[in-house]
């Protein structure tokens, strides 16, 4: 395998791993948060507006972790700096 293939293989595989693992863990966290919020809503329906707002803010915080992973994997696939470097190195020859 020459260096171009190595960069391509590592980029594609790590993009898949990034989005896979990076979706799994925040999904577990979001599930726990929603479950707890639903329990609290059932116990205290009067506080629904506060609980819902806090839930949304918290979910956004958790979800942003998944979004970071998504952005990284998108960069690895569509705007890979290492790939462009390799291409510019080998393209000249």
């Amino acid at each position, binding site marked *: 395998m020459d260096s171009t293939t190595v960069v391509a293989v590592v980029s594609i595989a790590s993009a898949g791993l990034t989005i896979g693992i990076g979706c799994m863990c925040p999904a577990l966290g979001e599930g726990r948060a929603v479950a707890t919020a639903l329990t609290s809503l059932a116990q205290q329906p009067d506080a629904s507006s*506060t609980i819902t*707002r806090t839930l*949304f*803010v918290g979910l*956004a915080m958790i979800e*942003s972790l998944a979004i970071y992973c998504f*952005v990284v994997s998108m960069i690895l696939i569509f705007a890979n700096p290492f790939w462009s470097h390799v291409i510019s190195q080998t393209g000249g020859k």
Partner: protein
Amino acid sequence: MNLTSDQVVLWHYGFMKLNETILTTWVMMILMTLGARLITRKLLSEGVISRWQGALEIIVTGIEKQIRDVGLSQAVKYLPFLGTLFLFVATCSLCIVIPGFKPPTGSLSTTAALALCVFVAVPLFGISEQGFVSYLKTYTQPTIIMLPFNIISELSRTLALAVRLFGNMMSGVMIVGILLTITPFLFPIVMTALGLLTGMVQAYIFSILAGVYIAAATQSAKPKLNRHARNKKDLYG
């Protein structure tokens, strides 16, 4: 495939470039300003109000109520800033139903600019509310050891605001683009409808988070004051 609309350069002269992001941002701003100007030209305080004025009043009072719910009691003071953030992000994400429109919030430069506005506005509001010295003192709460962590959290939440909005908007556009090549008709429509929902949620979250940060910066001295007052009352009473 272009990751952001920054890479589409429509016109350039020397070092100046006009890319699609700047164009759509300015079109959105002009549209929103003109629309607001046209609606507020003839405001009525009594009698039968126009439908547009009714809609605008619903939006403004709704945003004001949300800001007050966050814990900012002087909601009117923060309404221009937070309301502008919300309306800009919300309108941008609503316009994705227009074919060929790429939301300017799907570019990291726009969202970084919006997040920098929040980054600058939070200390300004905090200083105007508490004074310079007592605002700086909040960075050393609860102890002086927390000073670097407070500064890091200030920076990292700005980064998080920018990347969260960018990632959500960009992913919406990109997923529709990818699905168009795989399953041309049904799924892109469903995903666009989902993108409308995500866009509104993100607009809400962006402005609510900015409100929460402002509330934390302006009100951190309040509980101590209360405790102080209570102690004084105990002492004298």
